């Protein structure tokens, strides 16, 4: 591997981790459910947040997972909306496979545009951007496994060469068997 320069590693403000049935923020547990199943778990997480955001219910699992991870990170943060200095840098292994499999099944009958629109991994970037009016830099990488260094290195490049002052960076994955995991950081220039 080439040497990725990891300057400003102390610029990671906090990190949320979502694994089946459990959410931690900076390694401290902030949410736990009996159920580990992706649908009920994400619904419970949303309800606990007391958000009123009806678009959430239209989203596929990948978007719901990424959306909630970002909501947890942005809570109590004074990051201005309506700016193009917040970047989103995400990655996963499955891309949109969870929804791809569902869409493939609709083709034989009536192809569903409401499902098709979620057959791209970067839609989660769009959902988070819409919610917070983030107009900034963004990128979706697909990786065999989570390569945090590549994402942090790219984020550093954004800090150095673009308007970016804050970035949400990390891994959001839902596979074809509904296994899910998210590890997202809030980084600051």
């Amino acid at each position, binding site marked *: *591997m080439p040497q990725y320069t990891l300057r400003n590693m102390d610029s990671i403000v906090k990190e949320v981790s979502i694994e089946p049935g459990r959410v931690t923020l900076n390694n401290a547990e902030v949410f736990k459910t009996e159920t580990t199943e992706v649908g009920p778990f994400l619904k419970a997480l949303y309800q606990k947040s007391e958000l009123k955001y009806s678009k959430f219910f239209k989203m596929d699992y990948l978007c719901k997972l990424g959306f909630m991870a970002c909501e947890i990170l942005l809570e109590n943060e004074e990051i201005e909306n309506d700016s193009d200095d917040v970047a989103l840098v995400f990655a996963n*292994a499955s891309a949109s496979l969870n929804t791809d499999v569902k*869409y493939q099944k609709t083709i034989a009958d009536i*192809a569903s545009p409401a499902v098709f*629109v979620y057959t791209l991994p970067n839609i989660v970037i*769009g959902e988070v*951007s819409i919610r917070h009016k983030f107009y900034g830099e963004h990128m979706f990488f697909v990786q065999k496994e989570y390569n945090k260094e590549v994402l942090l290195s*790219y984020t550093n490049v*954004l800090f150095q060469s673009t308007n970016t002052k804050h970035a949400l960076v990390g891994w959001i994955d839902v596979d074809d068997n509904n296994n899910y995991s998210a590890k997202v950081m809030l980084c600051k220039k």
Partner: protein
Amino acid sequence: MITIGAHNIISPLGWSSKENFDHVLKGRSGIKKHDNTKLSDTPLQASLIDEGLLEQEVEKYPSLKSYSKLEQLGILSLMPIVNTVDIKSERTGFVFSSTKGNVEYLCETELNKDVLLANAAKNIADYFDFKTEPHVISNACISGLAAIIVAKRWITAGIYDDVIVVGADVLSKFIVSGFQSFQSLSANPCKPFDKDRDGLTLGEGVASVVITNSHNSDENSECIEVVNGAISNDANHISGPSRTGEGLYRAIKNSVSDGSIIDVISAHGTATPYNDDMESQAISRSGLTEVPVNGLKGFFGHTLGAAGLIESLISIMAMQNDVLIGTKELVCQGVVAPINVLKENEPKKQKGLLKLMSGFGGCNAAVYFKKHG
């Protein structure tokens, strides 16, 4: 200075960059009406790579037979240019850009792991024994242009000396039915920026390009510089473009500076009513109403993850050949904001090219290229 190195395009218009460019200059299009039930139950206008020609090419390299069509095309597109970089070096990066990769494997009953984009990229990279792990970028229709931006940034940051970028997508019922379900496909070859445009046309294509750090090049030596690029989100809608062109306007603003000479804009120009109106807004708001604009999708269709690369490379060759390319299928311009869309080819010396792309998820990208020498 970061510049464009060797490149190659495979599309229905040809099996090399030059062949593609020559056919574009002559006004030829890869778009035809197809009755192909593998892709669509109804007749489909599309620009499809000829299966017979691909088979002939694959015959020359028997080991290619075990690869998917997408991987075969990726490998074939790389063959003439890999020798221009040191693939054994840790300083050579590899980026694969695709929206749907090997998605046709989902038709099989067992899940084929090569449906994963990282596996498809690895299959292509391993054919050539690239030393570094391939990177994959999947950002809907801006993927190819986004890959150029990432490559440029990595080289600037000193992570790589050269980055080889491959953009590829092939059509499948998955993709075609999705666009049909959105009612976004035209019954005729797409008409970018025309007042009667009624939808896009899909296309197949693959392009490869070396982005390189030319340490020794001076202002006078002939080259195409990748000056700057930017990505911005509309923050408005996941499947429809912003009516005000907000994200694209910001991407343009962040990729060019006040003094940048822009002689031509190669637009996204999908020929859907909303996209082309949105682009006219973004271009107009950027104060570029007089700059000649073209759209190349009347030649290639929308080649998805390869589109940003194919269209950039054709526009770069046009700049090198002192010609502006007209917008095939455009008869009468009809977009909401005043811009200057070219209908016919015109001779013109050019120094600066602005390439634009937009896609689902509200993403927008712009790259500014400059000709030296």
